[in-house]
């Protein structure tokens, strides 16, 4: 019976004791076994850095996971929101933390875009990925009385009269801007054929769309779920290859577009670069167990999202691949610095 299994079955009050015990055993255990025994356990509180504000999707996921990790690992996991600079501040604080397992954080897809835009020299290589826990794909939204009732009609209009239509969803160069510009580029249009109107996130963008200030919005489809379900907005497309459970009838860009374009934002759990393998694999296993609990399944269901888990190797590959793809998009739209 492995050490980690043993701790999983003891109660929470005993967990601290067990953690102490294991900590005292750790040096000898490390000498006897392979270096990747994944037996590392935190002995004091862990700080979880969230680069985005309280109440948002990243924050909700990180806090619920921190709560489950507390149960898994037996020490407090304190969530700290370090917002600002379109994610730069939080990611920088995370990357500058000590790689000792006591600083982890919710690094998001922006780690793959910020450096291309010239906001920060920081890249995914400054982090040690632990797992990927959330993905949300972009939607293409219009008002119900819009003259464009399919994605094709919208793209045809943009092709016929480039620059006439406007879209919104996030700041200039933000992930939902790249979703639209990348789709236009992949379909052989000028990435600015639908002009981007920057906004402070999805809420203000949806307000602009409903008030007739812009023609299209391309935030995460899940962020506009209430408006789409209640008929205030219409979803022309979902930038994914799998339909969203709540809105199964929204056409998928992977099906209807020749390029098969898709784009999703993601939330990873990561640590500063140089985290010892033993600690990283302990976290990987703890997160794996946490996201396969009934509590996590229930939480994800309440948000209309499926349970998603990618291990360390998969997350690293995702970060690397996304960095390359979004870098091409950013260069194509002329935002690269």
């Amino acid at each position: 019976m492995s050490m980690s299994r043993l701790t999983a079955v003891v109660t929470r009050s005993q967990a601290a004791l067990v953690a102490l015990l294991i900590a005292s055993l750790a040096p000898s255990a490390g000498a006897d076994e392979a270096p990747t025994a994944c037996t590392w356990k935190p002995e004091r509180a862990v700080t979880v850095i969230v680069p985005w504000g309280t109440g948002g999707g990243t924050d909700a996921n990180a806090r619920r996971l921190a709560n489950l990790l507390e149960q898994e690992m037996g020490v407090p996991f304190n969530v700290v929101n370090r917002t600002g600079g379109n994610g730069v501040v939080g990611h920088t604080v995370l990357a500058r933390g000590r790689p000792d397992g006591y600083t982890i954080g919710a690094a998001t897809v922006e780690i793959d875009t910020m450096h291309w835009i010239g906001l920060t020299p920081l890249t995914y290589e400054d982090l040690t990925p632990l797992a990927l826990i959330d993905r949300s794909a972009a939607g293409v939204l219009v008002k119900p009385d819009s003259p464009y009732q399919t994605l094709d009609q919208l793209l045809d209009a943009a092709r016929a009269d480039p620059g006439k239509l406007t879209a919104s969803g996030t700041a200039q160069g933000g992930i939902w801007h790249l979703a639209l510009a990348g789709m236009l580029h992949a379909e052989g249009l000028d990435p600015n054929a639908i002009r981007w109107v920057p906004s402070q996130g999805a809420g203000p963008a949806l307000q602009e769309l409903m008030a007739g200030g812009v023609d299209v919005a391309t935030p995460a489809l899940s962020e506009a779920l209430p408006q789409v379900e209640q008929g205030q907005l219409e979803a022309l497309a979902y930038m994914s290859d799998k339909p969203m459970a709540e809105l199964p009838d929204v056409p998928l860009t992977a099906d209807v577009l020749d390029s098969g374009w898709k784009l999703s934002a993601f939330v990873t759990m990561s640590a500063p670069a140089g985290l010892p393998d033993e600690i990283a694999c302990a976290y990987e296993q703890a997160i794996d167990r946490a996201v396969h609990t009934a509590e996590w399944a229930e939480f994800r269901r309440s948000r209309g999202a499926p349970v998603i888990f990618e291990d360390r190797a998969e997350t690293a590959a995702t970060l690397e691949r996304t960095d390359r793809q979004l870098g091409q998009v950013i260069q194509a739209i002329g935002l690269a610095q």
Partner: protein
Amino acid sequence: MLSDTLSTLFDPGNLAIIAACTLYGTFVGAMPGLTATMAVALLVPFTYFMDPLLAISAIVATTSTAIFAGDIPGALLRIPGTPASAAYVEDAHRLSQAGRSRSTLAVSLFASSFGGLVGVILLALLAPQLARIALQFTSFETFWLACLGLSCAVMTSNAPLAKSFASLFIGLFIASIGIDVAVGYPRFTFGNYELFDGISFIPAIIGLFAFSEMLRGLRNPRRERPAGRTQEGPGLAIRRAAGTLLRFRRNLARSSVLGTLIGALPGAGADIAAWICYAVSRRRSRHPERYGKGYVEGVVDGGAANNAAIGGAWTPALVFGIPGDSVTAIAIGILLLNGMSPGPQIFTDSPVLVHTLYGAFALTNLLMIPAGLAVIFVSSWILRVPRRVLMPIVLLFSLVGAYAITNSVMAIWIVLALGLLGYAMEANGFPLAPTILAIVLGRILEDNFMTSMIKSQGDMTAFFERPWAAGLGVVTLGVWLWLVGRGLTQNHRARHHAAAPHASQGDRA
């Protein structure tokens, strides 16, 4: 259904939460520099694990009381607790120095409570109609509204027009620090990523008001005598407050309704509502010359307006699921987390939630009266402490607070830098209030201006193309014309009385 709502509302757990949040909101609002938004943000981690009805009650109770409690340090220490209190801080503080701290704060408590009740009644009766106006608001309209709010700050200032405008532009400059939303380019950050998000309001208000006030105390230590040695008794204070409200009942009604309407507009909140209502009040008053020098009429308007705006701010959130301000943005997040979708169907799908929301508003605004009175009577004793002892203590707590909230040492540097700036400004007769409002509204103004220009591709006439934009634009331009007219007469008079000393400068009591 009514019984459902009542049983939810008067459930012991719910009542306990509302009572606890009333106290919590009072505490956070009364701490200089901690805002109502922050109070709610600190509450969020707990609400993730709460029943949604309780969570909504908690948010409503916290914001309502925090906005009122922001008046307390404003009156006692001349440090507005929230930006919404900054409009009438000068009046409230001078009244309090004249020994009327308790009756002044009671006026603002009763006005807040009344405004809050009017806000929720209008929300309950007219939400769909209010929402229809809110749905007319794009970046053009919001730009004009922010312009109007800033113009009101200049309009209500007693300093010479040029100095008021200078103060406003200093604030707008400070607001321009950080990443610009339109093109995502960092400005005036000198490569320091801590400045990417700009100068936040909390260290700014602590620096401009608390630290500069302490520096002033250092300059002439003997001049300051502890004010309010003689306190009004509770009965007298309440009688005086009731008399004031009765005398200005028209102001109370006008600002409650106007505050709710402004709060319902996207991008505008309690801050803009308080400033616009204060400016309207001064224009309509029989004694406009007494505003800003310790006159209670403006306190009635501002106090009612900012609490009324909180109710109004829920309109777009409930009707479209789109937040009207940062507090409702958090609330929507909590509703979604619990599987409830705000939007037109929430009125039919979750009527209990909607009615509990209204009920929580009403209950909080009533509970706020005894809680508020208790806090007023206890806290006004603080005036007995000599200021040279009190101010460093307040500054210390504010600094720790600013650091703890932002988790960044940069906050402390900002406090120190803006404290020196505030001291230099006041010593030379520049008013501080326009700077503060400009720091709060500068971002909104710029974002909406840039967004509008991008949409219209540089065509300025687009700012007058939509009906509401045209209306607000004409009103704003009218205010500017009036201001220029006033400035010219000021110059004219100043030239006539060139020999006489300038009365309106440096005359702080």
